[in-house]
């Protein structure tokens, strides 16, 4: 609707799942929307590095926002996946109890889940559990079975939301961390970024671990977000069927345990740790953290083939002491809407979070729904060759022969998919961007073979990218340090 004087009705800070889900919902209205992201791509923070679980919703305290949005988000996820063409699998989850003493905990969890509105929960006995998961620990005595839990491709979800938002008119600006926010005398806000100043009537703070810094720039109350680090190990697809469901450990005297789960890409994931740290960029793994994961995965599951580990990583949850999402307009800052402290189950809840935040903004600004037919509701994903039959893949090759050029040999990603990922709305600009959109580099060689080929594709397809300045994940992460013999020439000149 764009009032005179403001560039946008809404600026969303952060292009993670919460920000992008909100952007997509707002794209259904007549409001103008811009998403500012400090990194070079969507899905670079908390949304990128997590367990990638669609939680059923029995964990959060009954009556909390977390509980409500988790259950709602879970219910919305499958429909959204169909519309936006990303992958969700409803494999169900098991919370495994390994001591008779703790069985009460299982029933408590069951009761809480029922109160939260989680459908079809069931406490199952040892034998049922063993028949479902042959590799479960012999000390397991029972489990809470939640058939509505599942796994999701977190990159696919985040990218799909962003692409669809962009298709519907949302603007994305990358490499644009918000350095200052000024509350304008006539109402509304001005945001300073290295890419320039933006003005808007309404700000959505979906800045993940940085949400406190953003919040505290304008709000009278002060928010503190603690980066809670979670370290994970990812195992090769050969280990992908070691378990068939998401396996959690029931918290016990032994501690909290870690989850063991198949991933959407067919790998096995184990983790996370939970360490409160100071550094909002502290996504490094530690020897202690990784050995903790290695040790704890054995509480619920036996013989996890840790020699099949292909990578390890850390993610930071945006934790606050209250352990509750912070969503709403701040009383001290009209038009400033927090979408903060979105930690687990934030990924699951994201479709519901997007709806809720967009609803708040719509009410504040009096936005109206766009006329029927204007909003493009669906999005065609990048095809995944592994899902295709011989005939289907062959047909694609007839349409575009580049589907026949396999670039990533571990995951069977073709050149056509990579070119597609680069040229889509909010397209990939870095190796990690290609990886998140196509699944290339995610296999057992971990980009050893395909790095040079993807670099070549990026430099060929993007006018401002050359082999010399291709990045892994945005400025500062260039792969190349000049040409062969450059240093020798420099030395001769010195």
């Amino acid at each position: 609707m764009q009032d005179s004087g403001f560039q946008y009705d809404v600026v969303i800070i952060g292009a993670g799942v919460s920000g992008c889900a909100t952007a997509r919902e707002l794209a259904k209205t007549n409001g103008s929307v811009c998403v500012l992201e400090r990194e070079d791509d969507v899905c670079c923070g908390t949304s990128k590095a997590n367990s990638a679980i669609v939680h059923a919703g029995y964990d959060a305290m009954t009556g909390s926002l977390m509980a409500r949005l988790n259950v709602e988000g879970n219910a919305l996820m499958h429909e959204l996946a169909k519309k936006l063409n990303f992958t969700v699998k409803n494999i169900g989850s098991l919370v495994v109890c390994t001591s008779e003493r703790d069985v009460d905990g299982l029933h408590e969890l069951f009761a809480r889940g029922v109160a939260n509105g989680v459908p079809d929960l069931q406490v199952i006995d040892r034998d049922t559990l063993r028949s479902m998961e042959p590799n479960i620990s012999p000390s397991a005595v029972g489990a809470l079975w939640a058939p509505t839990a599942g796994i999701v491709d977190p990159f696919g979800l985040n990218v799909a939301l962003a692409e669809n938002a962009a298709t519907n008119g949302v603007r994305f600006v990358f490499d644009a961390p918000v350095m200052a926010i000024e509350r304008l005398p006539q109402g509304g806000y001005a945001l300073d970024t290295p890419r320039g100043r933006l003005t808007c009537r309404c700000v959505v703070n979906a800045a993940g671990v940085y949400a406190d810094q953003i919040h505290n720039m304008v709000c009278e109350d002060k928010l503190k977000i603690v980066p809670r680090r979670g370290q994970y190990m990812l195992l090769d697809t050969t280990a992908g069927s070691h378990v068939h469901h998401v396996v959690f450990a029931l918290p016990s005297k032994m501690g909290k345990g870690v989850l063991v789960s198949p991933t959407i890409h067919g790998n096995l994931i184990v983790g996370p740790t939970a360490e409160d740290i100071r550094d909002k960029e502290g996504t490094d793994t530690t020897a202690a953290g990784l050995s903790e994961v290695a040790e704890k995965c054995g509480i619920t599951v036996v013989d996890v083939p840790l020699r099949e580990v292909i990578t390890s990583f850390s993610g930071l949850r945006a934790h606050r002491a209250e352990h509750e999402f912070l969503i709403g307009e701040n009383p001290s800052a009209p038009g400033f809407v927090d979408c903060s402290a979105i930690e687990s189950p934030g990924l699951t809840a994201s479709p519901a979070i997007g709806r809720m935040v967009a609803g708040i903004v719509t009410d504040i600004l009096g936005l109206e729904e766009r006329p029927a037919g204007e909003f493009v509701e669906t999005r065609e994903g990048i095809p995944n060759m592994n899902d295709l039959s011989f005939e289907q893949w062959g047909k694609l090759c007839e349409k575009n022969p580049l589907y026949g050029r396999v670039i990533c040999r571990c995951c069977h990603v073709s050149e056509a998919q990579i070119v597609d990922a680069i040229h889509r709305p909010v397209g990939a600009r870095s190796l990690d961007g290609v990886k998140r959109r196509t699944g290339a580099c995610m296999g057992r060689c971990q980009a050893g073979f395909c790095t040079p080929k993807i670099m070549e594709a990026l430099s060929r397809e993007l006018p401002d990218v050359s082999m010399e300045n291709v990045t892994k994940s945005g400025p500062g992460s260039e792969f190349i340090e000049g040409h062969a013999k450059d240093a020798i020439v420099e030395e001769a000149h010195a």
Partner: protein
Amino acid sequence: METRTLTCIRCPRGCAVTVTLEDDGTITSVTGNSCLRGDKYARDEVTHPVRVVTTTVPVEGSATEKMVSVKTAGDVPKDRVFDVVRALTGVTATAPVHTGDVILANAAGTGVDIVATKDA
């Protein structure tokens, strides 16, 4: 008298070769080698060590290659290896290049040519 034990680099066996020298540098014996290459290597190594240098130079006008691999057509003194590499800075080959083509004659005055080791 001095004895020096070297690892022969002339083939992948990596024989441990022992060379005995007189005080004036005359070689009195070479042992431990499995072949004549090893004998020659050991004698060269204690008197005037030599190496083959392999590297690449950019190639222009090739449809398939950005670089063409090259080598010294024979041994060059070990202490001239970097001179040979320096002599190649700024050298660009022009397609078509064939294996064996001289890319740079008499590299760094060693008397040894740099030749292509692939077609481009």
